């Protein structure tokens, strides 16, 4: 009796197991059939969109799709009991724990960390999964890690650009910090590239950062730029702007160029689309827009002219945005083995969007502050991107192209005779004892920061626009009631350039009295006489 009931129980258990296993078998067949159907649909969809679903991770996605079917609720809906094997051994269905476990390598196109980190841009139609994957595989070069390059690099690293190259040969100075947001008080004196790498690593360690710790030269430009897909010109001088543009044209790279000074900024996407030289459908290069360099004396740096931090920041952020647009939309593909960046078309044989070049002007204190203007197309006689181009890879690497000579250099102004100038140390002994008119020709905002006792402010920017007689009248008017100072004039300015021009102009206009300037300006005064003099 006891044995019989035991055997009966065993038979019942076996029948139950067989029934359960047969149910699992049916479930598996349903899953297989559905997975095959979905595979076919995904394949057909892939064919329809031609690249909408990258081949390299179709397998992973299909695996994920078939796992979803295994959820018990889904099986219940289909009227098939969701039984779980009671016996030990390998489970026949994937448990829900496996589905929600941390993403194993290759299962999803992005890592768990990347979904979280880039989630806010991933859910945008303009970026999405495809855009993020393109950003991840992109290599972007930021030339110049200053006021433009710092915010640009920060946003590119934040957005998940896979490889970010940084080019700069300068070190961090305290006067950089009001606008160059990757650098800090702690990194003063350190190379800008290393300071930036330090910050960007902390921001997003998923980005592969490549430091280039020297300024770009004609000899190095092609080699460095060739391994990137897009370039940002964040430099501060025409010489580097022409060099970077020429190299980008030769290598077929899109170039996002920006500049800023005082309260204004300018932005252009150049060589976009990046067609070979001679192809009129390519975007214009820097030489198409500016075939001749500006006179060297018209080139003003941020150090000389000043810059509002957020103004250059806005332009750098816009550069990052323009670059993200170019990459995420798949307008250009990755660099191929020859170092050329090719265009990627979402549909076979579709003509690429024609170039519609524009220049964005930003003027912070104007209303409205932004203005976008249409630019010309490629210049048919451009030295860089036309069929008649004279600039070649050989002329760059051999060093036969002299960008410094092309753009001209301003040598230190030296238009006065030695007896018309006085050194700071010498003047420090004379300026209290010897009566004279002290004329400070800096702008009023400079004068307000610091001035020598008794100095009269007459900005050179006003003097230069006036005829000589009007200048004499100005000086007469300003010195009324100060006759005890005599007729001798000492002219000072910031660095000792405008003061020479003012001396020459006063003499030419016929000033009655000796006229001299302070050699080296108030900078020399600080260096030689008064170390507490404000250094701005």
């Amino acid at each position, binding site marked *: 009796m006891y044995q019989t009931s035991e055997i009966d129980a065993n038979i019942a258990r076996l029948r139950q197991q067989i029934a359960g296993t047969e149910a699992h078998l049916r479930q598996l067949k349903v899953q297989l059939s559905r997975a095959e159907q979905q595979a076919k649909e995904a394949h057909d969809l892939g064919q329809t969109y031609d690249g909408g679903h990258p081949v390299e991770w179709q397998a992973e996605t299909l695996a994920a799709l078939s796992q979803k079917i295994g959820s018990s609720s889904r099986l219940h809906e289909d009227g098939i009991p969701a039984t779980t094997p009671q016996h030990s051994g390998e489970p026949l269905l994937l448990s829900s724990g496996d589905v929600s476990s941390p993403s194993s390598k290759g299962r999803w196109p992005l890592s768990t960390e990347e979904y979280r980190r880039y989630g806010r841009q991933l859910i945008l139609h303009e970026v999405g999964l495809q855009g993020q994957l393109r950003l991840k595989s992109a290599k972007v070069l930021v030339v110049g890690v200053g006021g433009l*390059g710092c915010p640009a690099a920060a946003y590119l690293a934040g957005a998940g650009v896979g490889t970010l190259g940084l080019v700069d040969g300068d070190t961090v100075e305290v006067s950089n910090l009001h606008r160059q947001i990757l650098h800090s008080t702690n990194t003063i004196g350190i190379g800008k590239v290393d300071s930036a790498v330090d910050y960007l690593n902390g921001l997003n360690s998923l980005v592969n950062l490549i430091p280039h710790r020297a300024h770009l030269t004609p000899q190095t430009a092609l080699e460095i730029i060739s391994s990137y897909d897009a370039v940002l010109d964040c430099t501060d001088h025409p010489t580097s702007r022409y060099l970077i543009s020429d190299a980008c044209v030769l290598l077929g790279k899109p170039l996002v160029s920006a*500049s800023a000074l005082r309260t204004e900024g300018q932005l252009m996407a150049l060589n976009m689309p990046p067609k070979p030289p001679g192809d009129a459908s390519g975007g214009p290069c820097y030489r198409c827009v500016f075939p001749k360099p500006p006179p060297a004396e018209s080139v003003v740096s941020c150090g000389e002219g000043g810059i509002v931090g957020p103004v250059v920041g806005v332009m750098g952020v816009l550069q990052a945005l323009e670059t993200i647009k170019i990459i995420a939309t798949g307008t250009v593909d990755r660099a191929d083995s020859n170092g050329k960046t090719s265009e990627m078309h979402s549909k076979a044989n579709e003509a690429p969007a024609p170039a519609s070049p524009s220049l964005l002007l930003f*003027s912070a204190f104007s209303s409205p502050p932004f203005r976008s*203007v*249409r630019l010309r197309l490629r210049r048919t006689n451009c030295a860089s991107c036309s069929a008649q181009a004279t600039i070649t890879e050989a002329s760059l690497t051999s060093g036969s192209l002299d960008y410094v000579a092309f753009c001209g250099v301003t040598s230190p102004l030296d238009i006065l005779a030695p007896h018309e100038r006085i050194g700071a140390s010498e003047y420090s002994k004379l300026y209290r004892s010897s009566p004279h008119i002290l004329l400070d020709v800096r702008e009023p905002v400079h004068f307000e920061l610091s001035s020598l006792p008794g100095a009269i402010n007459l900005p050179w920017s006003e003097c230069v626009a006036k005829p000589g007689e009007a200048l004499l009248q100005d000086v007469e008017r300003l010195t009324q009631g100060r006759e005890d100072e005599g007729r001798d004039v000492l002219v000072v300015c910031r660095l000792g350039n405008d003061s020479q021009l003012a001396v020459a102009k006063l003499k030419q206009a016929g000033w009655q009295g000796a006229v001299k300037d302070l050699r080296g300006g108030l900078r020399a005064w600080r260096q030689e006489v008064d170390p507490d003099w404000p250094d701005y």
Partner: protein
Amino acid sequence: MAESSAPGGYPIPITVEFTGGLELLFGNERKHKVVLPARLENGSSPNISFLLGYLVDNLMQDERKDMFIMEDSVRPGVLVLINDADWELEGEDAYELQAGDTIVFVSTLHGG
């Protein structure tokens, strides 16, 4: 109708703007209202080439003319925009000015 009603036509009011530092040559004023004659002495209509000379003679307050004009055109590094388009898209200095036009002179910036 308007052309036939007045001998030589009506004067042409336009807006001229300077930016990128060029405003410093024009009394530090960015925006200027300018009225040009409808017909020049030689009977032609005023074009950009005429405007350049007009601005130097009438509006420019700085003696350094070559900071704006070189070899009878704008100096290298200055873009001329006709109604928000590069002047090279509109016929450059031969473009004949129309009432209401906005002409912008932009000096390229280099800082960064």
